[in-house]
């Protein structure tokens, strides 16, 4: 058997096996051996045995086929249930988010404030999510902070606050020579941008023609009194005074003393005075008033009580 056997390395299959490559004689011998093995080792079976086997097998196949048919419906039910569960799980957070947006809008509506048509919740400063402000106007914030820094460069340490109301920019200085708006209370020797308070006061007109006629964005040092005189979009003379102070403790971030007065020709002047406790990124209703048969609501939002002037221009 071993006569004529050659052992070669099988390189064609990149195999590490040593393949036995028998010579012609050995191959014939192996074939004869295999034939003998097949003849002697074969398990006999006749046609009758095969038929009997098929008779036993057939009911099993049919039974399995029926069982598979019966399984089809429960499997489909499970698949649908699984798909529904996945959908619900995916929709739940989305629903909560949408609901929170809705709740924010509802809060305004319940307060008698109707959102103006041009109100864009993705951009506007006063967008609620629960009690939190959801979005701001990054461009406006950037513009305000840049403006403050440029003004700071002009007026050095005397700058106390800067406000944008309507089409006007107003600043408050603590020096009598250059101040355009007098700062009544200031224990700050110099403006420190990192501690700026950034807030927004919005007045909403309610009723059949809702709008936001007045918005003031204010950057101020804590403790400085801000006083703004401006015209609102519906022609009213508005006088706004706010005195923001950082609060000590965890219940709120900011104490705000706000006085709002509006005067419109042919209408009784309206006045509001309110002390508010605010948290960062929260908005609070400062009150409602009526003027000329129209209802208004005042909202104050706090962006930051330590506004970071991260976008400091290169001229600094």
């Amino acid at each position, binding site marked *: *058997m071993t006569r004529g056997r050659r052992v070669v390395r*099988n390189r064609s*299959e990149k*195999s590490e*096996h*040593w*393949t*036995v490559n*028998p010579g012609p004689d050995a191959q014939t011998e*192996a074939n*004869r*051996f*295999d034939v*003998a*093995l*097949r003849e*002697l*080792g*074969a*398990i006999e*079976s006749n*046609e009758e*045995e*095969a*038929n009997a*086997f*098929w008779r*036993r*097998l*057939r009911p*099993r*196949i*049919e039974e*399995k086929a029926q069982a598979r048919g019966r399984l089809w419906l429960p499997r489909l039910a499970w698949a649908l249930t699984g798909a529904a569960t996945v959908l619900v799980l995916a929709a739940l957070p989305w629903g909560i988010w949408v609901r929170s947006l809705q709740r924010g809008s509802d809060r305004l509506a319940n307060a008698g404030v109707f959102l103006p048509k041009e109100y864009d919740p993705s951009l506007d400063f006063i967008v609620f999510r629960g009690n939190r402000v959801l979005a701001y106007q990054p461009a406006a914030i950037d513009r305000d902070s840049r403006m403050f820094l440029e003004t700071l460069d002009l007026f050095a340490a005397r700058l106390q606050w800067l406000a944008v109301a309507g089409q006007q920019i107003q600043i408050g200085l603590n020096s009598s020579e250059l101040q355009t708006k007098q700062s009544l209370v200031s224990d700050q020797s110099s403006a420190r941008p990192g501690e700026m308070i950034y807030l927004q006061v919005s007045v909403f007109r309610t009723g059949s023609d809702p709008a936001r006629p007045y918005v003031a964005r204010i950057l101020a040092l804590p403790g400085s009194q801000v006083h703004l005189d401006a015209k609102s979009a519906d022609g009213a003379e508005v006088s706004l005074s706010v005195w923001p102070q950082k609060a000590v403790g965890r219940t709120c971030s900011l104490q705000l003393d706000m006085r709002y007065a509006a005067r419109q020709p042919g209408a009784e002047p309206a006045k509001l005075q309110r002390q508010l406790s605010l948290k960062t990124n929260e908005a609070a209703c400062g009150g409602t008033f009526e003027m000329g048969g129209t209802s208004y609501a005042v909202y104050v939002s706090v962006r930051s009580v330590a506004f970071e002037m991260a976008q400091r221009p290169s001229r600094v």
Partner: protein
Amino acid sequence: MAESDADPALDNCIHRCVLGDLDAFGGIVRACYRSVRQMCWYLTGSEADADDAAQESFLRAYRAIRRFRGEAEFKTWLFRICVNTCHDVQRRSKVDRQSVSADSPDTEQALASVQSPEPSPRDMASREELRRHVREAVRRLPESHRRVVLLVAFEGLPHKEAAKVLGLRTATVTWYMQESRERLRKMLGPQLDELRE
């Protein structure tokens, strides 16, 4: 479907079965029963397990026949199912198959039990006795070798086809076959040669 040229009747049955004809599957079972039953008998080691494994193999084949694309010979495909089924049945029934590992310390003892007392065919009571010896010798081969012997020697599959069935390299199949021949020769001794003559 590249069907076998060897058996047009079987090809016809396969074609009809793929279309859902259960009776056609009966034709396949009848055509392949001997081979499958034989393989199951050698691989499981008991009559009961062999019957279970054969039934299970055909059941699996029926379930999967619609996925049979004819890329391989039908019998090659069926043998692959059969080998896997036997493996599962063996594992389930935990039958001690008494297969002798090549490195097992019982090897020599097993060889001795088959070799001695070295009866010649003429000394045997009947040809049936010799058959029993051959079957026993084949069943004493390690499982990997036994599978190769069944496919190559018993079913006449080329080494390449057997390698496909078993998921081995062709060279490995060749090597196993050579080893098996030598082992069987050792176990059966001159009995096989004399019978061959």
